[in-house]
């Protein structure tokens, strides 16, 4: 028995070491750095300053703009990813050659590097890019739309690119959930005279609740951490209108050389993600109860 237990620990040891080295330690170190002043160069020049870095948050109007933009981004992407993801899953929830091909095509963007996606969409959204050219040829616009250059359009455009890339991921998760719903429940509902909408409301939705909360949580956490697409497409501009928490963190850390304050922003991102994870866990427990 003891030998089996020891063998068990040995098997998990590599993964545990990896977890400790690349997740736990950096996390704890970041929390520590948030209490220090450090330019990020000489390890001997890390000075403990307590909570002074946290006091930099209130007057930092770029932080608050980034927080607001992150909120809009999270809400926007979560709503549309789930709407389209679920919609596609419902539409493709049957096993034909056509649906297999379409599912694959929808999933391909998930496999692309976000940098490639960002560069591609930047070209599409260029004032003289293909999207404006098509819209002008169709007579839908007379002058170019500044997808990434107008105050109110830039973040919407990035949300669009994000949904394009990740909708396949949500679709696959919802598909998995749908395929676990026993067919007999739908048959029973049909026998009881339920129409398609009633079956969706009374059978599909309740049984997809667990999958949906997980998908929404993953979308939230992914949204709070967004960096790559924003950085490639706009670098947080124009004029901070697409600045998100992660891009502001990047600028503070690697341009302003304020590792301590950047770590504070990282801690805030972590705290927000933990709140979402906790809420989800509470919801799941209440459901089970």
């Amino acid at each position: 028995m003891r030998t089996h237990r020891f063998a068990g620990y040995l098997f998990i040891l590599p993964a545990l070491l990896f977890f400790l080295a690349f997740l736990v330690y950096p996390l704890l170190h970041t929390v520590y750095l948030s209490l220090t002043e450090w330019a990020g160069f000489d390890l001997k020049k890390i000075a403990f300053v307590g909570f002074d870095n946290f006091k930099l948050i209130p007057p930092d109007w770029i932080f608050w703009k980034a927080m607001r933009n992150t909120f809009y981004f999270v809400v926007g992407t979560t709503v549309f990813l789930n709407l389209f993801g679920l919609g596609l899953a419902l539409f493709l929830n049957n096993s034909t050659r056509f649906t297999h091909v379409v599912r694959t095509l929808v999933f391909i963007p998930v496999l692309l590097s976000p940098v490639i996606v960002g560069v591609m969409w930047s070209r599409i959204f260029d004032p003289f890019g293909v999207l404006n050219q098509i819209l002008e040829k169709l007579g839908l616009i007379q002058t170019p739309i500044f997808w990434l250059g107008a105050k109110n359009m830039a973040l919407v455009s990035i949300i669009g690119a994000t949904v394009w890339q990740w909708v396949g991921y949500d679709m696959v998760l919802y598909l998995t959930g749908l395929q676990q719903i026993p067919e007999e429940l739908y048959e029973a509902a049909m026998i009881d005279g339920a129409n398609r909408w009633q079956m969706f409301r009374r059978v599909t939705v309740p049984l997809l609740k667990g999958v949906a909360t997980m998908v929404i949580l993953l979308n939230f956490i992914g949204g709070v951490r967004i960096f790559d697409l924003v950085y490639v497409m706009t670098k947080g501009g124009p004029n901070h209108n697409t600045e998100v928490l992660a891009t502001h963190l990047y600028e503070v850390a690697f341009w302003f050389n304020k590792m301590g304050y950047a770590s504070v922003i990282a801690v805030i991102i972590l705290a927000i993600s933990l709140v979402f994870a906790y809420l989800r866990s509470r919801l799941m427990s209440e459901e089970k109860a």
Partner: protein
Amino acid sequence: MVAEAAARINRPPRDASRPKLDIPKYFPSALADLTFEGNTYSIPLDVNNLTVFYNKNIFKKVGQKIPETVDDLISLCKALKAGGYMGIAHGAKDGWPAGDLYFQMLAYSDGSHTMLRKADFGKLTWNRPEFIEAALQILKMNANGVFPPGTAAVDYFTGASQLFTQQKTAMFYPAGSWIVGGFDTNFPEGVEYGLFPFPKISKVQDSASTGGVATNWGVLKKAKNQDLVLAFYRIAADMKSAQILIDHSMIPPYAVNIQAKREILADMIKTQAIAQTRFVFTPELHSQVMSGVQGLFTGEVSAAQFVAALDRVEKTIKR
């Protein structure tokens, strides 16, 4: 630093084919970028100055000449528009070109060329007529079609440079020696391009460009062979090395009597003499200048709001 090194080290054996080694008189603007609180930390290898590149073929086609002032530039762009062309391709999305545009206008609005450095170090408020005027000039040019629509969304190396090489715009800014190779490759054959300093605000001013150090040398405090390093740097700063730099389309950081084979490089070398520094030591302020200019382009920021944002950022900096 270089003078001190010359006093200390043994000179390497004299190569008869090379002229006598001498300490070059670096351009003051180049050394200013590498000097902090009176200490020079590095010496320049080569410099860049930012000018407007223009398509000579388009200018000839629409019958226009090089503009001297911003008002001339606006008239030029109206004529270009009538001929089916746009004005100045400018990659404001990348941030740094937008900042450079502001510093260029500031080189004209601040005749003393000292206010940027003072504000950079928190010794001057940004809410001054000179800083506001530079922002107003950008607003004026943008409102009058000098830049293509949506410039805040156009990046430098792909968007703006393609607008220029595809001959949709007649001009490109900011341009320096780094981009000459790309333009040579991407322009169709037969297209000729040249440069001029950014137009000034008023006729009575002298022309000015802005510039800065492209590559610079340093030596680590703990380096073992510092004397040899410094000897090499001194060799790298002589006229023969200057010729090597010019042959590789780089601009020496001191005045030279060498004629570059290409006209555009010769013009760049000439323009270096009028280059003002555009270097900002405080990254938070530099970042805000870039963002603010993007805001000027999108129309969401006025000139007063532009400088107010800089003063706001200054208050958050611990000096």
